[in-house]
Each structure stands twice: as C-alpha cells, then as structure tokens.
C-alpha cells in the first residue's frame, strides 16, 4: 500500500500526530490509545476555536481603533446614539474586561447585536441557516460526486485525451471568479435579453406568489438551479484534481497487479479495487477544503440574492455592521473547524490503516 498511516494523516492539518505504538491487541491498551487520539483531536479543536475567538476580538475591536467611528463614518448619527453604541460595544471598559465579556457572551451563544437590524446576531443567523445549508449542501454533494467521478476517470489514464480535456476544463473553471460566472449565468439565462428567454429567476429563493407545499418546493428548486450550477462549477475542480492525483498514487500498487492477474476487466479493477482506496485520502482533503465552500457560498448568495448567511455577511459588510460581521466570522470559522474535527474522528472508522 502506498499510503502509510502518517502520510494519510498529514493532510488533516492537525499537525503532529501521535503515531500509535505497535502494541498487541490487548483490549485496555487499545481503548487508552483511542482515548488519547480523541482527546488530542479535541484539544487541537478547542485551541483552534480559542484562536478564532481571539482573532475575532483582535480584528473587530482592536484593529479598527474605534469601531463606532468606523461604523458611523459618513452618516448622520447624534452624539447620544454614538454613546449608546459605545456602551453596547462595552468600549467604556478596559480592554481585558471587554475581552472577557465578549468571550463569556460567546459561551452563552450571545454573538452581540446587529447595528443594522437591531436584533441579536444569533437570531439573524438561525433564521438564515436553513437556506445556506440547503444551497451549500446540495452544491457540495453534487460537486464532490462529479469531481470524484471525473477525477477517477482522468487519473486512471493520465495524459490521455479524456484526462487532458477534463483537466483543461477544470483549470478554466478554477480560473474564473465565482461571482462572475454567476453574473454571466444571470445575463444569459434569466435577464430575458436577446434570443434567450428568461428561463430562471434572477435572484431570491422562492416566488412570493407561490402557495402550497408543492408550489413552494418547485419554485425553490427553480430558484436553486443557477446558484447550485455556479457553486458546482467552481468547486468541483479541486475535487477532480485531488481524486486524480490520489488515483495516480494508487495506480502502481501491487494489489492492482494481483487484481489484473486474476483476469478482471480494466473497469472492474478501477471501480472495485483502485477507487475505494484512492477515495480514503480524498475524504480528509474534502473536509479540509470546506473553507473554500464557505467562500463560494458567500459569493453565490450575494450574486443571486439568496437569503442565507452569505448574503447576511454581505449586507453587514456594506454598512459596515461590525457586530454582525464579527458574529458571522466566528460562526464561519468555527463551523469549518468543527467539520474538520468531525473528519478527524470519523476517518479512522473508514480507514483501518490509521486506526489508533
């Protein structure tokens, strides 16, 4: 096998890994090792989360100097309003007290108040979580399936025509800015200008005139087509490249020679023997790339006015509503870290070679 446990673990990004001691299969020793592994991963995640909290504080409270002035610049705000904002942010207190209040608030899931919506940030986020999960989930699943499928094809015969076409298309989509692709789709397919009829709506999630469950579902599906296509086009390329190189690593393995020697057809060797093994290291990398999915969602939602977290982030930026942006920063970063933790914990279940 080409993938040793430590190598497979390396891309998980968690840094140093405790290489499991080659102890015998005694029950208690194994349980202890599993416990050490899980605790190690949990500690890493907690430290990362703490770093996110500190970064959020540093970025939005210390770096701007006076956040209230940054937010109210160029608009009519009375002195009382400014004082009120200052008190809301706790700017009248010493810095360490501000940090403690902010961190304690986060532990109570209190992300502060939005300056623009005059509502707790948590409520705003919960309201819009559903649409974002729907869009990002659909997009990621389709992109991963497409990328893995095409990547397996391309990696099996590197240098062949299929590989070159696939890689070129993927590179092109990778070079195109996400938001521009979205804008292009709107102009082509939904503006109704020129020879193309307006096939799809230019934005939003559901037609307000839709009534009844079926109509709502259909309308949502129609609204989803262009955003999902944009997301898939931009993120499938990296899955393709990862799968391609993973399969190319696997290609020289002895067990494939064995499979061929048994007289299996080429497609069967690929599908039953090579792909499952190449998939394993790909899984961690998919989770590691979730940050890019978040970036993609922000842009796609902005372009298509999809009422999710990305659009909320954009609306916070335009004001700028630093309380809202800070809350979303913490939520985005924390969700990516938690997904990575999940990948670290689930991966050993999938791949016995890295089991502690």
């Amino acid at each position: 096998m080409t993938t040793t446990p430590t190598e497979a673990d390396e891309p998980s990004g968690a840094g140093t890994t405790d290489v499991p001691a080659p102890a015998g299969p005694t029950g208690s020793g194994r349980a202890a090792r599993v416990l050490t592994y899980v605790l190690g991963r949990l500690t890493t995640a907690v430290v990362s989360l703490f770093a996110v909290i500190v970064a959020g504080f540093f970025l939005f409270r210390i770096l701007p100097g006076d956040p209230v002035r940054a937010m109210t610049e160029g608009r009519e705000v009375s002195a009382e309003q400014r004082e009120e904002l200052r008190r809301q942010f706790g700017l009248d207190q010493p810095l360490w007290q501000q940090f403690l209040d902010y961190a304690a608030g986060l532990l109570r899931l209190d992300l502060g108040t939005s300056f623009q919506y005059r509502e707790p940030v948590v409520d705003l986020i919960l309201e819009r979580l559903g649409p974002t999960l729907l869009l990002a989930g659909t997009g990621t699943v389709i992109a991963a399936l497409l990328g893995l499928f095409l990547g397996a094809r391309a990696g099996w015969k590197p240098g062949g025509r299929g590989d070159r076409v696939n890689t070129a298309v993927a590179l092109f989509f990778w070079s195109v800015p996400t938001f521009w692709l979205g804008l292009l789709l709107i102009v082509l397919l939904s503006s109704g200008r020129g020879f193309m009829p307006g096939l799809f709506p230019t934005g939003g999630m559901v037609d307000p005139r839709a009534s009844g469950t079926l109509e709502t579902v259909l309308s949502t599906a129609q609204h989803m087509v262009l955003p999902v296509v944009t997301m898939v086009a931009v993120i499938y390329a990296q899955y393709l490249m990862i799968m391609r190189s993973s399969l190319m690593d696997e290609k020289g393995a002895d067990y494939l020679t064995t499979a061929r020697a048994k007289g299996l057809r080429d497609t069967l060797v690929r599908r039953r023997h090579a792909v499952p093994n190449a998939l394993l290291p790909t899984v961690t990398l998919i989770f590691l790339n979730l940050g890019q999915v978040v970036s993609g969602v922000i842009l796609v939602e902005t372009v298509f006015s999809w009422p999710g977290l990305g659009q909320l982030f954009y609306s916070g930026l335009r004001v700028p509503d630093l309380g809202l942006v800070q809350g979303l920063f913490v939520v985005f970063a924390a969700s990516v870290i938690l997904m990575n933790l999940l990948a670290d914990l689930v991966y050993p279940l999938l791949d016995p070679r890295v089991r502690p």
Partner: protein
Amino acid sequence: MSTSEHRNPRPRAHRTEPAPDGPPPVPEVSARALARRRRREALARFAREYARNRAGLVGLASLLTIGLLALTAPLFVDQAHLTITGAPGESYQPPSWEYPLGTDNFGRSVLDLVVWGARVSLTVGLLATFVSVTLGTLIGVTAGHFGSSGGVGGRIVSAVLMRITDWFLVLPTLVLAVALAAVLPRGIGTIIIAIGLTVWPPTARLVRAQTLAVEARPYVERARALGGGHAHVMGWHVLPNVMPVVLAQTTLLVATSIIAESTLAFLGMGDPTTISWGGILEAARTAGAISAGIWWYMIPPGLAIAVVALSFTLCGRAVESVINPRLRGQS
C-alpha cells in the same frame, strides 16, 4: 587558481613578453565568473525545458501582451474619458466601431475601462503575491530548519509555527481577507495586505517540506560541522535550493491573488476611486446592468480576469514541470 599563483611571483616585465615554453596564456577565470557562467547555463537549460511546454508558452505570450498593454495604457487611453463627468459616449451603447465593447451606464468606453483596470489588478495581484510568498517562505524555512536541527527550543518554535499555518489553512480565506479589508482604512494597500496575509499558508507548508529535504543532505551537515550557524545554513544552503519551488508557487499564487482582488472589489471592499476589473463588475451589478442583460459591460472584465489567471496558472504549471521532472508528461 593555480595559474595565477604561478604567475603572480613573476616580475611584471616578464609578463608582457610571451614566454617561449611557459604555459599558454589562459584567460583568467575567477570563481565568480565561473559561477556566473554556470548560472547562465542553468538559465538557458531552464528556458529550453520551458519552451517544450506549449501551454506554458501560450501563457507566457498572453501575459507579456497584457503586461505591455497595461504599461502603455496611458499612451492610448485618455484618462479624462475615464471619469464620470468626462465620459465621451451615451449610456449603455452596445458595441460599435467607436466603442468596440460598448459603454457603461455613464457612457464610458468599456474597452478603456478594462485596459485601464489591468494596471490596478496586475499591480495588486503581484504585490499581494510578493507579500504572501515572502511570509510563506520565511515561515516555511524557519519551521523546517529549526524543526530538523534546533534542539528542543527549535522544535517547539517549529511546531508552533506549523500550528499557526494549519490554523490559517483551515480558515475560510475569503472571510478572513474580507474581515481585514473591512476594518482597515480603504485603499489599495489594505487590499494587498488583506490578500497577502491570508494566502501564504500553502507556500509555508511547501517550503517547509522542501527545507526538510534539503537539510537532510550531506552538504548541509558538512556546513554545520564546519561551524556554520543557523543564519548561514538557512540563507546560504537552504534558501537557494528552495527558490525553484517558490518560483513555481509564486506564479500560481498570482492567479489566486488576482481572483481574490477582484472578489474583494466585487464585495465593495476596494477603493472606489480606482478602476480595477473587480470594481468594474461591482459597478455593473450595483447599476443594475446584470439583470438588465447588458452583457458587454460585464463579460470583458471577467474574461480578462479569467485569461490572466489562466495564463499565470499555465506558466506556473510549466515551471513546476521543469523543476520537478516527475510531473512531466502528466500535466
């Protein structure tokens, strides 16, 4: 060396007359000239290898064309026509002979805007790449060097640096860059810093891996045995050997940085007084040209971004395949 040692003790007068049976006059070859020649040959070899990669040549040609166009833009674009008040045409004129790419909502020529926008987009892309490559190389070399030969303290420094790198690697790059751009004062400098500070982690990881490979070689051990300090080993032995990898990574990163710049500008984080490709697209969107289907306003800037990013990517992959023969025939 040996010839000059032979000749130096001789009196000057003898040197001008050709010695009848002495060694023929050898052109003086100093160590430096030798090194220069070796470097020239290496460069020529690199150019020859690179020229074999057709995609790389196409990328290079397109970059040179665009770079030249951006540099000479003041010669054929009237800057007064780029202001809102000095716009020469009518609003939203479709492409014509006078305006090959039509006009925007103020009546400015879209072709002029796109040509002018190349200046800011390329500058920001290159400078942001410079910042992030410098940062990534420094962190990567430091982490790699002290991780392999720094004692306990060094190993702790290295581990901490890599943890920080991993943390940045996992975070959503765009969110971090946008947050930075939102809290710092508006301007090109902010955009450069916001991108430079967020896209370095892959470079750091790559450079660290390469540093570890270099440090394992015998000549580094020899240098250390002769008393070479950390700075000597890192600057004299590791850095030159890491440079080829850094070069390839730099070329690829410019593409990322240019896309990042356009993205930040599109989200409204850019400097509203400068014209960049992302800024043009943002203006098109806020002016409602997208849902109105004004295709000539939004296709050219995006296509420009894609072409430049693709060209840099092609060049980067070509450089990569030259310095890493294992990749050859695969790209």
